[in-house]
């Protein structure tokens, strides 16, 4: 059965599909390690969440800063322009109107420059077309001149604005000329028009469109105001020129437009008689519908930006808070000592106060944070305490000198029992008094909440849901005994975490006092997590606060 074979082959064949089941204990180990990992992850989960929230907050602050900056220069431009277009201002235009005008101007500049300066050839076909129509030849030079004058001022507009007087006189003619060229191109090449209609990138058509927009726009009642502004923008001479005839240039423009719009239908109808009507009809309607849409979009965009800017103003809000705090536990344990687990606890109402800041992400949602000082206090009732040199320690209290000499117990484990237990000679012959009283534990925290609030209603009365987490830093830790006429500090608890968390859930009720000032009442429930570093004695604390205060928007 023997054969010579390559050693590699031998191993490959033998170990092909080789499987060995590992023993059970391997999985047991893996499972144990996995569980350990899961447990360890409980706290990092909170850390991560708060980290995310904090990063979000910081990011928003930065984003807001960055966002503010580009809008400011934009506003400045608007202001400058209104200053320059001094005659525009008295027209009583709204802010949006100015903004639109401002926006359309550079657009017009762009398209015109595209159409004319880089491609001078484009201008030639039009005059060429016009030449076919003998009536128009006289107007062409004027038109092209007007175009040139028109185009030149754009790069250094402010200077040329002054010389706008001349231009304004040319404008009606120019517009007519444009109408002619438009018509001519229609007349000459129906197919071409169709093509150009589809390919509006074509420069020639762009130019035509750009100019006919003005006229057709003037016809289209819907977008008349926008178009007026557009012509304003395109003919800086118009806007700047103090027209002696009319009181305001706005009216002058209207008249101009009316003129041209009056003129163009006549002319177009005249042509439709001459030419086959179908194409032209579709042509004119196409221009009338497509182009105003673009302008409307611009208008909408501007309006949006304006409203955004308005809203942005009120994104930030600072708040002050004062809250009565009701501390309690879901269970009846004792974090001090298991001896006191069954003793009755009374929870003293305390006060929390602080400041907060809120940033509105959108209309409904806001992130908030702040700093609060929170004090928590409760009493373990029905205990007895007395002085003894061999005092039994309270499990989770680091006694001070005073405290180390005092034993605290339940009445059943009181003085008599202790004397029985210790029979210390030092106790003999001394009168030892046993006091009835309470153990009072006070803790204080600096609380840093990171929360999200969601507005349900937002009118004069507002209602919102609040959820989030708080990080609490321990800054007060005191255990004292309170008896009849006695109160003394006996030490501090040694099982309190220096840092713990709470999950927060609340309802916010708002009342607007003024536009930017509102009062609020926020009943909030905060369930504490990881309050005790080790033995918590089955004590699961939470607190309930009625946060009231004022907030100011800016």
């Amino acid at each position, binding site marked *: *059965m*023997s*054969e*010579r*074979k*390559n*050693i*590699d082959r*031998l*191993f*490959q064949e*033998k*170990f092909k599909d*080789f*499987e*060995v*089941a*590992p*023993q059970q204990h*391997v*999985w047991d*180990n*893996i*499972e144990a*390690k*996995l*569980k350990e990992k*899961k447990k360890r992850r409980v706290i990092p989960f909170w850390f991560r969440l708060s980290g995310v929230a904090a990063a979000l907050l910081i990011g928003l602050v930065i984003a807001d800063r960055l966002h503010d900056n580009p809008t400011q220069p934009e506003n400045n431009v608007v202001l400058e322009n209104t200053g320059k277009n001094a005659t525009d201002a008295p027209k009583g235009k709204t802010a949006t109107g100015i903004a639109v005008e401002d926006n359309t101007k550079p657009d017009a500049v762009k398209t015109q420059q595209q159409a004319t300066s880089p491609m001078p050839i484009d201008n030639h076909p039009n005059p060429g077309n016009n030449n076919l129509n003998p009536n128009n030849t006289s107007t062409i030079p004027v038109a092209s001149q007007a175009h040139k004058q028109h185009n030149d001022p754009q790069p250094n507009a402010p200077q040329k604005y002054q010389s706008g007087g001349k231009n304004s006189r040319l404008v009606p003619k120019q517009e007519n000329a444009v109408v002619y060229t438009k018509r001519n191109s229609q007349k000459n090449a129906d197919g071409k028009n169709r093509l150009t209609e589809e390919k509006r990138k074509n420069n020639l058509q762009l130019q035509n469109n750009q100019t006919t927009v003005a006229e057709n726009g003037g016809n289209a009642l819907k977008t008349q105001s926008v178009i007026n502004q557009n012509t304003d923008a395109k003919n800086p001479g118009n806007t700047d020129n103090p027209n002696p005839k009319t009181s305001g240039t706005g009216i002058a423009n209207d008249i101009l437009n009316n003129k041209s719009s009056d003129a163009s239908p006549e002319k177009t109808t005249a042509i439709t008689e001459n030419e086959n009507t179908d194409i032209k009809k579709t042509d004119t309607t196409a221009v009338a519908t497509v182009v105003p849409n673009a302008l409307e979009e611009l208008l909408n965009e501007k309006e949006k930006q304006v409203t955004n800017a308005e809203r942005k103003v009120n994104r930030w809000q600072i708040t002050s808070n004062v809250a009565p705090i009701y501390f309690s536990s879901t269970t009846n344990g004792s974090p001090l000592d298991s001896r006191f687990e069954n003793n009755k606890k009374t929870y003293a109402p305390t006060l929390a106060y602080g400041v907060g800041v809120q940033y509105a992400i959108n209309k409904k949602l806001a992130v908030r944070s702040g700093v609060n000082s929170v004090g928590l206090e409760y009493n373990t009732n029905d205990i007895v305490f007395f002085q003894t040199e061999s005092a039994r320690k309270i499990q989770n209290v680091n006694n001070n000198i005073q405290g180390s000499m005092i034993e605290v117990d339940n009445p059943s484990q009181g003085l008599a029992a202790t004397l029985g237990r210790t029979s210390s000679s030092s106790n003999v012959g001394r009168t030892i008094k046993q006091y009835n009283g309470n153990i009072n534990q006070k803790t204080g925290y600096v609380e840093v909440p990171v929360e999200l609030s969601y507005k349900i209603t937002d009118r004069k009365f507002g209602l919102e849901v609040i959820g989030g987490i708080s990080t609490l830093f321990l800054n007060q830790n005191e255990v004292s005994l309170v008896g009849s006429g006695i109160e003394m500090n006996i030490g501090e608890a040694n099982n309190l975490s220096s840092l713990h968390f709470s999950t927060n859930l609340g309802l916010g009720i708002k009342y607007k006092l003024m536009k930017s000032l509102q009062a609020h009442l926020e009943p909030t429930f905060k369930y504490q997590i990881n309050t005790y570093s080790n033995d918590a004695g089955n004590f699961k604390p939470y607190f309930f606060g009625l946060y009231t205060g004022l907030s100011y928007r800016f």
Partner: protein
Amino acid sequence: MSLEQLINDCKNNDTKAQEQLYRLFSSKLFAICLKYSRNYAEAEDNLQDGFLIIFDKIHQFNFKGSFEGWIKRIMINNVLQQYRGVSFLELINENISDDSEIEIDDESISMDYLMKIIQELPDRYRLVFNLYVMDEYSHKEIAEMLGITTGTSKSNLARGRMILKEKIESYTALNKLPSAR
């Protein structure tokens, strides 16, 4: 439950799913561990560590390529991690006879013995032999994985082969009368 569903559950740290995945692949992966490790106990340790890495990184698996290939690679890399650092005296560029032909009776050699002699190989030889012969990596890939040159990889492979060959020959000599040619 489909494998995809199982993997997704594992991504959510579902303990049941993790156990099921373990049951599904542990035999195959343990075979790899046995080949690459020095002995049974170390193979168990490596299997355990490897599975912990798999569960830890399973969220990175995005269903491109075979899952089995993916976990095999993790397991092999994990084992390499264990033995890569162990250096030993190098003897390279020595002429080693390329005669890896061996006269052998297939049935006469037990799996246990083959496993034993693989595990007994010096670490580097064992890794290279396994990677090249069993898992069909190229010398270039092996060189990258182990941080050595391709020349070292080749010489390690040849030396590993020689040792295995000698052991098999002595084994057949011991257990069987030399068969007539």
